[in-house]
């Protein structure tokens, strides 16, 4: 397996369509969800997430590189680098070749996002695994999945397996539509709408951090049909059922936390559940267009059972994922960025402010994050060549352990990303699933022997 490490300009490679887009769109503004991320990038926060596929055969890297080179012109709005303006960051056309790189034991670490020639996504290969790591500045899971499907379709096309192109798998020889790079947040903002209510600070997971540039990834694989049946038994959807088990596991960790003993020392446990806004507001953008619901349990009121949590999550999600409510948050985000006073603040000062806002209005508000991408919807032409799809989310010093769920065929993958030594949350989550009668197969990039911090005895 060979990887190319050198980068070279590919202007001379002769892509008339790509050249046309280079001229018409030499730069892009960041969308309103992406604005805050560049200010947060650091050694402890890469803001990158990862979609990975386990194939039935080892990856042919030259073929994967050829597939990547072939599909790049179809996604001109991803072939960019992040640059600093005087007032805002912006994207500029990047003509450096994006090489497929090898994988690492600790993926999703800080990459050369801010450097000249640095891309905001990376394609990685290892054994029979292909991974796409995408910085959230670039796009959300919807856009990344379309790019990933198109990459896999082209990879298999080069192996002789042809795929029918549609709205979920793009034809690499097709022409990009302007709506694919629109900022849909701006389109759906409703100036004058009242601001959303901001709740109190949430409880945060305790735990000593893992060494810098390392993270623990723990994946549990279940049968999708069995888990769906189990969710139905509880009268819930898969998303609600998994979120409820997650909240219940968080409650278990809080119960065992010595600093949270006694009603007065407890804080609300709040989970961030992202949702694709394209289901609520028509949009075909491949940039960020997602918001979230914040189901919570106030454990000062007493211990919540799984059924009670399911009832709460169902109610909160129904209230949150309402077009009018969503418009409140969209409007708040867009109008804040459009405020004349905010606009004229120079970028270095704005960065400091954005870091503060992220802490007060972002990380401090949630205990953790769990996203359910749903079915990966791989084209039938090569779906059976893929054994499993995983989604890995970035944990940060604030959101120490987070989870991403995706399914492919009957394989439901739940992957935890964590930057703390203790793994109580993962253990309690999967043990809870096992107790409901589900079979779970668990694997991790971090050997159990690596854990140095003692977990609290009650959770053993």
């Amino acid at each position: 397996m060979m990887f190319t490490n050198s980068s070279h300009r590919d202007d001379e490679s002769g892509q008339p369509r790509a050249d046309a887009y280079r001229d018409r769109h030499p730069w892009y503004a960041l969308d309103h969800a992406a604005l805050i991320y560049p200010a947060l990038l650091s050694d402890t926060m890469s803001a990158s997430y990862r979609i990975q596929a386990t194939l039935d055969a080892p990856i042919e890297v030259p073929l994967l590189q050829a597939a990547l080179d072939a599909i790049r012109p179809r996604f001109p709005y991803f072939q960019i680098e992040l640059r600093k303006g005087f007032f805002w960051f912006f994207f500029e056309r990047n003509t450096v070749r994006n090489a497929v790189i090898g994988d690492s034991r600790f993926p999703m670490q800080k990459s050369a996002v801010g450097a000249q020639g640095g891309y905001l996504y990376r394609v990685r290969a290892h054994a029979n695994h292909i991974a796409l790591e995408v910085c959230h500045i670039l796009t959300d899971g919807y856009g990344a999945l379309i790019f990933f499907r198109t990459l896999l379709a082209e990879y298999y096309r080069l192996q002789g397996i042809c795929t029918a192109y549609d709205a979920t798998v793009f034809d690499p020889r097709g022409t990009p539509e302007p709506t694919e790079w629109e900022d849909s947040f701006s389109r759906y903002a409703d100036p004058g709408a009242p601001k959303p209510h901001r709740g109190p600070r949430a409880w945060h997971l305790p735990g000593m951090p893992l060494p810098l540039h390392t993270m623990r990834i723990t994946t549990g694989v279940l049968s999708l049909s069995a888990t769906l049946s189990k969710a139905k038994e509880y009268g819930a959807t898969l998303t609600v059922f998994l979120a409820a088990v997650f909240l219940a596991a968080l409650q278990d960790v809080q119960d065992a936390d010595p600093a949270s003993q006694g009603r007065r020392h407890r804080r609300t446990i709040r989970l961030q559940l992202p949702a694709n806004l394209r289901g609520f507001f028509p949009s075909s953008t491949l940039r960020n267009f997602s918001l979230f619901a914040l189901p919570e349990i106030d454990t000062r009121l007493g211990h919540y059972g799984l059924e009670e949590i399911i009832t709460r999550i169902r109610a909160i999600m129904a209230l949150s994922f309402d077009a009018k409510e969503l418009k409140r948050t969209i409007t708040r985000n867009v109008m804040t960025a459009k405020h004349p006073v905010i606009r004229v603040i120079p970028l270095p000062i704005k960065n400091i402010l954005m870091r503060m806002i992220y802490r007060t209005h972002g990380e401090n508000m949630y205990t953790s994050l769990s996203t359910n991408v749903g079915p990966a919807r791989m084209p039938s032409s090569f779906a059976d060549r893929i054994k499993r799809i995983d989604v890995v989310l970035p944990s940060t010093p604030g959101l120490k352990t987070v989870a991403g769920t995706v399914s492919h065929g009957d394989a439901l993958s739940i992957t935890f990303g964590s930057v703390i030594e203790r793994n109580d949350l993962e253990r309690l989550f999967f043990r809870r699933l096992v107790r409901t009668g589900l079979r779970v197969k668990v694997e991790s990039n971090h050997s159990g022997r690596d854990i140095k911090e003692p977990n609290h005895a009650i959770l053993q």
Partner: protein
Amino acid sequence: MPYCSKCGVEVEESAATCPLCSAPIQHLGGDTIRDESSTYPQHIIDPDDAYRLSKSERRRMGVELLTLVAGLATAALLLVDMFPDGAIGWSMYAIGSVAELWLLSILPLMLAEKPRLMVVLMLAAILAYLCFIDSIDGSMSWSLGFGAPILMVTFIAVYLTTVAVRSRAIKGINLFGIGALGLAGYLVALESIIRLALHISARPYWSVVTALVLVPIAIFLFYLHGRVLRGADLRKIFRL
């Protein structure tokens, strides 16, 4: 499929311990099977350093940039000064200051690995700057009488205070005490130098008054540190 008897989850064929609870996994077939196709490799290649400069490269680039800026500023000042009558006048002060700033900014970059040599050279650079500025008008009036002794005393006071601070095994409120003692000694020496240079009585006055205030404060802080706090977290001691 092997599984963890504690957690109830299935694990990979190659797993020796449970990824969740570290409990050893019993394999019916004896030894664990080495699985070459695990999802993540064992090697680490992140963070991505492809576009990053090393520290020494960054320092060298910093020295280049600072030298270029200082050179351009010097040339501009000289030309502006010479423009009206072709003579060099006020620009000597400005150029001297630019040269001093340049030296003080590049020395930490060039001698980051040799901090002692860096401090000595910075001291020499400041002394040379004071003498240069003093000598521009043709006479040495204040640089040797005031400038050099005050500079030396300042350096010695900072050095001794730093040594005292670093020598403390338990650091806490005692550091403020050391700072107060250092400041008292410095002020006494400063007043003595000023009096000697002005040829008046060498016996210090106002600095002694200040020292008489600072020394009891330092003693109180040492007492508080040694007898009460002992390096303890103040939030713990004064928790409401």
